[in-house]
Each structure stands twice: as structure tokens, then as C-alpha cells.
């Protein structure tokens, strides 16, 4: 974590403190003097945005917990009380609910960025895997938070998702009863989801520290995909990256605010404003938008156990990406074939998300199967083979050459 300069405070008290706990030096070398590649583009700003969103979710969440009641008879009503009676409750809840969507939007961009520029490749495998763990934790946290509202979609999402585990041969039903704490989703389920929904964000924060630590050991990847070789290839984190991250964060907040103030329920499901009713399943069960691609994968396979395996496999396979991609060249900028397959992958992912909202019949089923096949083929067939057969473009000698041309 060496920087362009070392931290040496002038203030006597800071000098005294630094000798006893060198936290100022750690912050200085990690976020001020830390050398970042000079060619980072705006796609690199989403890590900062994600940290910001985690902070927003924790602050609004802790406040909502002061007013929310995790009991099947009171939960739905307490949410409505937050909306109508609590001072600024509507704002805090809309920030939290839309904040989850913004969080996932940012994480998807962050992940696609990593895939496009090969950020998962040696020596950043552990960094990438920590990211996959963060994504899984986010999915679990988001799901349990959605259940807390205790509307119809909350209740039936809890039922459907916990029932995924009943597909496990032999012990499935025992596990599901254990998860529920009863014979169906009920008060014990709501209580434990509340407990875990409060816990997991702090686990996420802990893993984020590891993620940033691993990032600062290997250094950032960059659009050229080659490592910095001299001081001419890097600039200090502050002001260069700080200002760039800050600018995009402000733009992102405008989008966030637009959702919160103008279309706060656009991404939600109207059925979740109906209190949970264990006797009636809504006519159509659809998860939140950020789970739709995986929901479409689940539905595209006409066998329960295989469908559940495909669902979990589609996420788990990400952890093996550093070894499935056999190409030595990182950035898609120098990989003409990979670039095309990558955009097809983006189309398949977004397409699966769209199909997740459609009824599972006719052309939608066929399309979902095609996209699901491509999703897995991309990882298991395309990436291993491309490393062997693809003719990559010549790499520049250095980052500054890639920016300034050969004259640099």
C-alpha cells in the first residue's frame, strides 16, 4: 500500500497519536496518496457508489428498525404507520426500499465492469471471490428485508424461496421446517428474518473491508488491463479518483432521488400493499427486479431439483470465473471475440430478467431456455476455449502509452 508520499502530520497532538495508533497513516496511504492507474474511466466509480449505498441502507435501516414491529399481526401495520405517522417516515422507507434497487443496479454495473476488463484475473482472484460473497450476502439481505413488509408478495416470496431447500433429497423438508420454526412461514420466520436482516449488513461491511484490503494489495485493474510499470502510469487517489468518484456519486444520487421522489413505487409490486394472507396465493408471483434473471433460470428448467441447482449454480459459477477464463489478456479492449461474447452475455442476462416478468408459456419458455443455455455456455464453453483460439490485439507497452500513444 505504498503511496506517492508518506504521512507526516505537523500537528503535535496528531504526531503523538500517530505514534500510538497509526490510523492517520493508514487512511492517508489508502485513500489519499494511494496510486491509481491514470486511465481509470467512470466505470471504476461504482465501488465508491456501492460503499455509499451500504451506508445509506444501514443508516435508514437502523432508523426504520426503531419504528418497525416484527410480529405477523403488527408488521404490515407498523410499516403503514411509518409511511403515514412517523415524521419523515415515508422518506426514510422510500429511501431504504429504492436504495436496495440502487444498490443492486450499482453492483450489476460493478460486476459487468469487472467482467469486461478481466478484473478477476491473476492476481485478483481472491478480490473477485470476496465480491461474489458480497453479492450473495446482498441477495440474502435484500430478500429478508422484502419479507419484513409482510404483504402478500413478502409472504409468498418467503414461502417460495424457503421451499427451494425442500428440493434437497432426503433432508429437504426437515431443513425447511427448521428454517420456518413452524409448519409454514409464520411469526417465528418473520422474527428470525428480522434478526438476520439487521445482522447481515454489518457482515457485508466486514467483507467490504476485506474486499478493499485485497484491492489495495493487488492494486486496481484499469481499462488497458496491464499493470502500472512506473510512476508515470499512476496518479494519486486524491484528488484524481476522489473527485471522479464524487462527481459520479452525485449523478447517481440524482437518479436515486428521482426514484424516491417521483416514482417511489415503480420498482415495487402493488400486491405487496395487500397484507399477507396465508390462505391465498396471488395470481402472479414475481420477485423484485434484481432477482428476475435467476428466477427465469429456475423456471426455464422443468424439473424441481435441477431448476434449483441451476439457480444456485448460476451464481456459484461466478466464483470460478478466474479459472474458467483461460486467456492471459485481461481487457476486452484487446480481445475482439471476447467482446462480442461479453455483450451477448449482457443481452442474455438482461433478457432473462425481462423473461422473469413474463408468464412461463409459449415463446417465453423457449427464449428463457436459450438464454439459460447461453448463460452457462458462456462460462463453461466460450471462456475456456476463447483463451486458446482467440487472436488478441497487441498490448501497449505501458498504461501511459495506451493513453498518450507511442510517443509517450
Amino acid at each position, binding site marked *: 500500500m505504498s503511496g506517492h508520499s508518506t504521512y507526516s502530520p505537523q500537528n503535535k497532538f496528531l504526531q503523538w497519536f500517530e505514534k500510538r495508533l497509526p490510523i492517520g497513516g493508514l487512511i492517508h496511504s489508502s485513500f489519499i496518496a494511494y496510486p491509481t492507474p491514470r486511465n481509470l474511466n467512470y466505470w471504476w466509480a461504482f465501488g465508491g457508489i456501492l460503499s455509499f449505498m451500504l451506508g445509506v441502507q444501514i443508516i435508514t435501516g437502523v432508523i426504520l428498525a426503531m419504528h418497525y414491529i416484527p410480529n405477523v399481526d403488527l408488521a404490515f401495520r407498523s410499516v403503514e404507520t411509518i409511511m403515514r405517522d412517523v415524521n419523515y417516515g415515508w422518506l426514510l422507507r422510500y429511501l431504504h426500499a429504492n436504495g436496495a434497487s440502487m444498490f443492486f443496479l450499482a453492483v450489476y454495473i460493478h460486476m459487468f465492469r469487472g467482467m469486461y476488463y478481466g478484473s478477476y484475473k491473476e492476481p485478483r482472484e481472491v478480490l473477485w471471490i470476496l465480491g461474489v460473497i458480497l453479492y450473495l450476502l446482498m441477495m440474502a439481505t435484500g430478500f429478508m428485508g422484502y419479507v419484513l413488509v409482510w404483504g402478500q408478495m413478502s409472504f409468498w416470496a418467503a414461502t417460495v424461496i*424457503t421451499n427451494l431447500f425442500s428440493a434437497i433429497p432426503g433432508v429437504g423438508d426437515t431443513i425447511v421446517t427448521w428454517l420456518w420454526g413452524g409448519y409454514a412461514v409464520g411469526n417465528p420466520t418473520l422474527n428470525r428474518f428480522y434478526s438476520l436482516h439487521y445482522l447481515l449488513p454489518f457482515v457485508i461491511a466486514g467483507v467490504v473491508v476485506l474486499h478493499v484490503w485485497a484491492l489495495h494489495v493487488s492494486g486496481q485493474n484499469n481499462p488497458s488491463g496491464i499493470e502500472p510499470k512506473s510512476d508515470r502510469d499512476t496518479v494519486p487517489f486524491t484528488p484524481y479518483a476522489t473527485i471522479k468518484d464524487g462527481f459520479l456519486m452525485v449523478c447517481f444520487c440524482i437518479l436515486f432521488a428521482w426514484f424516491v421522489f417521483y416514482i417511489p413505487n415503480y420498482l415495487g409490486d402493488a400486491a405487496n400493499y395487500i397484507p399477507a394472507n396465508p390462505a391465498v396465493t396471488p395470481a402472479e408471483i414475481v420477485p423484485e427486479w434484481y432477482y428476475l434473471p435467476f428466477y427465469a433460470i429456475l423456471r426455464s428448467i422443468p424439473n424441481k431439483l435441477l431448476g434449483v441447482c441451476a439457480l444456485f449454480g448460476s451464481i456459484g459459477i461466478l466464483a470460478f470465473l478466474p479459472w474458467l477464463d483461460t486467456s492471459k489478456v485481461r481487457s476486452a479492449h484487446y480481445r475482439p471475440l471476447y467482446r462480442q461474447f461479453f455483450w451477448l452475455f449482457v443481452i442474455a442476462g438482461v433478457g432473462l430478467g425481462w423473461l422473469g416478468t413474463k408468464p412461463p408459456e409459449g415463446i417465453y419458455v423457449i427464449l428463457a431456455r436459450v438464454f439459460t443455455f447461453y448463460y452457462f455456455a458462456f462460462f463453461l464453453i466460450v471462456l475456456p476455449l476463447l483463451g486458446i483460439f482467440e487472436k488478441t490485439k497487441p498490448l501497449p507497452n505501458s498504461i501511459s502509452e495506451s493513453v498518450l500513444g507511442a510517443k509517450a
Partner: protein
Amino acid sequence: MTTVSSAGHSRRDFLYIATGAVGAVGAAAALVPLIAQMNPDASTIAAGAPVEIDLAPIADGQIVKVFWRSKPIFIFHRTKHDIELAQNVNVASLPDPAPDSERVKAGHEQWLVVIGICTHLGCIPLPHEGNYDGWFCPCHGSQYDSAGRIRQGPAPKNLYLPPYTFISDTKIRIGEESTKSA
């Protein structure tokens, strides 16, 4: 710590292993309450006691929904037509083969009692819908026939049968399977 090693097995080796073993057993034992607390508690189990249902008011062809252990139970008063349809199926061709006689109690063929939870992912199927004179699940399109058997869609199993007993011709007790027939 001394780095001097004694030849063969010493008293200290024994103490290390014994201490480690006790520690491991203790850690494993500590996990039991941490995990078991999540299972259904005493009040939940007590509330899951058997329930008695009077069948007399259920009209021919009607499907009613009652609750036992927070689970919906469908009681289907089958018409002659429903029974014939259920019996005249090539059992071997079914995804989860079971003859109609296994789905109902002998002598009470007009009564089908099933747990109303789709065996796919736990939604409640809609009665009198679908192509097989039984149920249709709105979540992922599974269809069940008039014996509650899966006929089409992603569900792997027939609707499960709850334990129940006829205590008279028009009364059942759900939650208890009795060997002696009423």
C-alpha cells in the same frame, strides 16, 4: 515453551489430546441449542394437534379449504364423474404414479383429502382450474387432477396426503392416522 521433545508418548501428549477432545465435544454440544432453537417451539407443536372436520355440509363437487398446522387442507367431495376420471387413468403414464385407491380411504372414495400446497415451491393451487378436473397452481403452472396427482408442470410430486381418520361417515380427524378403520 520448551522445545525439548521426549522420546515416545509422554504424559504431556496425553494431556494435549485429552484436553483437545474435551474441548471439541464441548464445542459440538454448544452447537446443539444454538441450532435446535430454530425448530418449532412447544406452543407451535401444541397448536398442531389434530382437528376434527364435519363433512356433512360439503356439497357434491365442492372443494373446501381448512387449516391444520397452518397448512391449507383441501377436502374435495368428488362427484361420480370426478372419481371415474381419477380411476380411468393409465397409472404408469403419470409423473408420480399412484392409483386412485392409494389417494383415498377405502369405502370413502367420494372424499379426497390433500395438503393444499403445491409440491413445487409451496404456493396454494386454485381449485376447479386446469385441464384435469382438479387444481392449477398460479405460480409456475403445475396442474393436478381430481385425485390430487401431478399431471403437468414443474411440480415433482402429487399433492401430499395429510394423516387423517374417518371417525364416522361424515367426520374426519386430520392429524392422526388410525390403523383401525371406522
